[in-house]
């Protein structure tokens, strides 16, 4: 199936001479949640802004559901909803007016029933007549989401959707995004909370220094790059790793009370059994053991560091 978004050779150099994007190629599959991760200034917002028509590309092309964003801009843009990173809201308008305005702006006839449903879904219904400026930050964020959803987009861009939103509300937002995905909307989100990407995304792209350095399905990424650690809590602390165990990638921590062994979970022979036998042979006893795998956050940090 044709990807819903196809980006080819996308470049952007701002008037200041800053090159925000240095040739981005990216396909986003229909109906998936795609998380775009990257450090500050990596080009996330520039990339989104070009697809949405807010920033002009210096070179390259973007199509949305087959519509070129320059030649066929009207068709491309009507498919896209954008929730910007900044809380840019009208001040004096009511929630109802500002959300209805967005629907009209995207060329859709009024549909009060739909707006009502969106506001109820986002727990904004009782605030519909409130002026936007009187709302809390979390509510303003939801107003922005309601505006983006008001014209029934097929692709939804969420630029840092849960920044400044409390934990409980963040959970609620994740659920809502999950429901949208079930209704067939493709969702592209950028986030600083790697936990968020780990929780929701189907695919993950990492952008750094204006280049996409990796695109992978989340599960595959976690497996491929994930390192596992085996930590043994020792009965009596060690000063140094015994010479007999030099062949294993071991480190001591917690003042010699813990022995940490890192291994590749993909490998057929993890070497755990051999290690434990050797420890027994040398009379090193342990009281407890645990294994852990690296989180997406650790993977991400090591990836970005590697390329920097």
């Amino acid at each position, binding site marked *: 199936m044709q990807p819903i978004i196809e980006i080819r050779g996308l470049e952007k150099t701002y008037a200041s001479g800053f090159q925000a994007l240095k040739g981005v190629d990216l396909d986003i599959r229909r109906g998936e949640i795609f998380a775009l991760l990257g450090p500050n200034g990596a080009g996330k917002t520039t990339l989104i802004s070009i697809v949405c028509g*807010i*920033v002009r590309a210096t070179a390259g092309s973007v199509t949305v559901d087959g519509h070129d964003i320059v030649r066929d801009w009207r068709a491309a843009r009507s498919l896209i909803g954008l929730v910007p990173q900044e809380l840019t809201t009208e001040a004096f308008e009511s929630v109802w007016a500002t959300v209805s305005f967005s629907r009209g*702006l995207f060329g859709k006839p009024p549909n009060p029933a739909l707006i009502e449903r969106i506001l109820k879904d986002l727990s904004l219904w009782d605030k519909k007549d409130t002026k936007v400026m009187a709302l809390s930050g979390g509510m303003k964020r939801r107003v922005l989401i309601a505006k983006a959803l008001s014209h029934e987009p097929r692709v939804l861009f969420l630029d840092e959707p849960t920044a400044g939103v409390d934990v409980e509300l963040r959970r609620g937002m994740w659920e809502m995004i999950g429901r949208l995905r079930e209704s067939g909307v493709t969702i592209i989100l950028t986030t600083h909370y790697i936990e968020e990407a780990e929780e929701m995304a189907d695919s993950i792209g990492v952008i750094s220094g204006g280049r996409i350095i990796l695109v992978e399905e989340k599960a595959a990424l976690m497996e491929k790059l994930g390192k596992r650690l085996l930590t043994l809590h020792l009965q009596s602390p060690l000063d140094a790793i015994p010479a007999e165990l030099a062949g294993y990638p071991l480190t001591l921590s917690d003042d010699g009370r813990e022995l940490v062994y890192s291994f590749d979970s993909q490998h057929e022979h993890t070497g755990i059994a051999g290690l434990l036998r050797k420890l027994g042979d040398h009379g090193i006893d342990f009281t407890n053991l645990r294994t852990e795998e690296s989180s997406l956050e650790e993977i991400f940090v090591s990836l970005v560091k590697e390329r920097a």
Partner: protein
Amino acid sequence: MNLHAIKAIYVFELARTWRTLFQSIAGPVISTSLYFIVFGAAIGGRFASVEGVSYGAFLVPGLVMMSVLTESVSNASFGIYMPRYSGTIYEVLSAPISAFETVIGYVGAAATKSVILGTLILLTARLFVDFSIAHPFWMVAFLVLTSVTFSLLGFILGIWADGWEKLQIVPMLIVTPLAFLGGSFYSISMLPPFWQQVTLFNPVVYLVSGFRWSFYGAADVPVALSLAMTALMLVICLAVVWWIFRTGYKLKS
């Protein structure tokens, strides 16, 4: 043509007018009434009639024009500057709406407000002085043309300005002086010959003169010239707006 979008912008902008009804309508109406009281009743009584009309009646078209053009500029500039300032412009830029449609929405709303304002001032003036309108069609034509032209100018100003100060400075330093010196309060034939020549460089003179002609059939400059100058200003503003959207000037990087 994205008619829903034009309507959305137009309705949204006019809603701002209703919300700030006092400031946007009552304010200019009250200040115009004050002009009539001071210049028309208090001072005007000592003046002989100008071009065969009483000074009070002579004032009417000039005062309407002055309010319409200053309010058009300030309204339209505020209308487009506000979303740029707050950042909500992102939505208009990302919407499937063309430059032309955007301008119709914003400028249309500002011009509509100016026409309503002009009409209200005329009705208010009727309470103070007796006047007649010789050419109602041309009166409306001049009113609408001026509203549209100066709303376009305001739109350009609102895109050019990158601070509240700049937004104020053009109306204050350029539009208001031109309006005051544009023959709202006097006929330019009352000026010494040299200043009569200088005044002809002020575009407002042509607007006021044409508008006054539609009331009393007398004008400082030929009415065809008034019409041509108004049309010329309209074309210049349209060209600048076209250039703004073509280059993305201050709207898109």
